[in-house]
């Protein structure tokens, strides 16, 4: 990162610990209630590229021990410089070496199996992926929505996401079957986060 970029970078949270604690709470809510849109409130000056909710989630979670993989549209963008400046995280070029991954909207999502899966004795070593999506809905009345079930979901919850690859449900089934290994996912829009931990199973349903 050159100093020239520094002049165009935004500030982080106005209060570092309170700001990141609030986002951490959002992340906990999102993972404990999979399939629910969690509103993200923050006061950071987020970069232009990447969805704001994904950016602040990474800002809250990363530190200098973390490795981060970015999709092509985010690599070399102001989002990369911003995260590097504020968190000191290390960028890696291979998805399987990353603890965190951030896939920008419109970029092809790498196969979920290409990220670090953890091991049976240390499943917490798997990657956490943040995927920027165009939009997501949780009403059941849309055609071809998904039905989610698993821990944290009382009966069934419904979800429609625009901006994920076609074979996502198949990839997710494989990821779910690898339990206790497997990646955890956050879907991010500008204002909302949605958690999909590896314990959640997704079924395609034709709508009601």
């Amino acid at each position: 990162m050159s100093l020239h970029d520094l002049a165009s970078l935004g500030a982080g949270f106005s209060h570092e610990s309170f700001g990141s604690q609030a986002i951490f709470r959002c992340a906990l809510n999102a993972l404990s209630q999979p399939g629910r849109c969690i509103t993200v409130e923050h006061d950071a000056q987020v970069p232009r590229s990447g969805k704001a909710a994904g950016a602040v989630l990474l800002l809250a979670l990363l530190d200098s021990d973390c490795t981060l993989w970015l999709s092509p549209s985010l690599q070399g963008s102001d989002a990369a410089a911003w995260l590097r400046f504020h968190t000191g995280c290390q960028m890696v070029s291979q998805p399987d070496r990353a603890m965190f991954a951030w896939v920008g909207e419109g970029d092809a999502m790498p196969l979920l199996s290409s990220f670090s899966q953890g091991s049976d004795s240390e499943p917490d070593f798997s990657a956490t992926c943040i995927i920027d999506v165009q939009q997501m809905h949780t009403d059941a009345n849309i055609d071809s929505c998904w039905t989610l079930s698993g821990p944290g979901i009382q009966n069934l919850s419904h979800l429609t996401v625009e901006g994920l690859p076609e074979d996502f449900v198949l990839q997710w089934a494989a990821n779910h079957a690898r339990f206790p290994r497997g990646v955890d996912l956050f879907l991010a829009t500008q204002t909302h986060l949605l958690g999909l931990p590896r314990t959640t199973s997704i079924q395609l349903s034709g709508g009601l």
Partner: protein
Amino acid sequence: MFHTFDNVESAQPEARADWMALLSRAPLELLESAVGPHWPAKPNWLRAPETGLMMIQGRAGSTGERFNLGEVTVSRCALRLELASPQAAVVGVAYTLGRSHRQVSLAAVADAMLQDPSQQGLLEQILLAPIREYLSHQRMVREQRAQSTKVEFFTVARESGALDDEGDA
């Protein structure tokens, strides 16, 4: 004199590295008198002042292998300063030894102001020159103190070919 900076391959002119090295060793009083009046009413922090530990490395005789000398307390900050001139805002960055947040903030303001060509001349006069003077004075005092402990070893050269061992000191 140490020159360790975040971005070695940066295309920034050497001058900036020089004045940053000076500012990081400037005493608070000098910074306060020169930059204090220019302290922004509402500083635009990019990175608020923070204090932490940093491992410093040394090289034996400046040339040997690197070794970890020890940890030092370092404060750092970065702020954005709007300039009077139409030029876009500049970012001042500072790292200082110790825990004084005021000192590191003033050093960052000075770094930002020095990037404005219209203020560079004045600051060179009222800030950088006094810092250089202060540092050279400090160095001189330290050298004198070291000088006073100097021990001279005298050896009288042995006369070539002399065989008796008792004559020499």
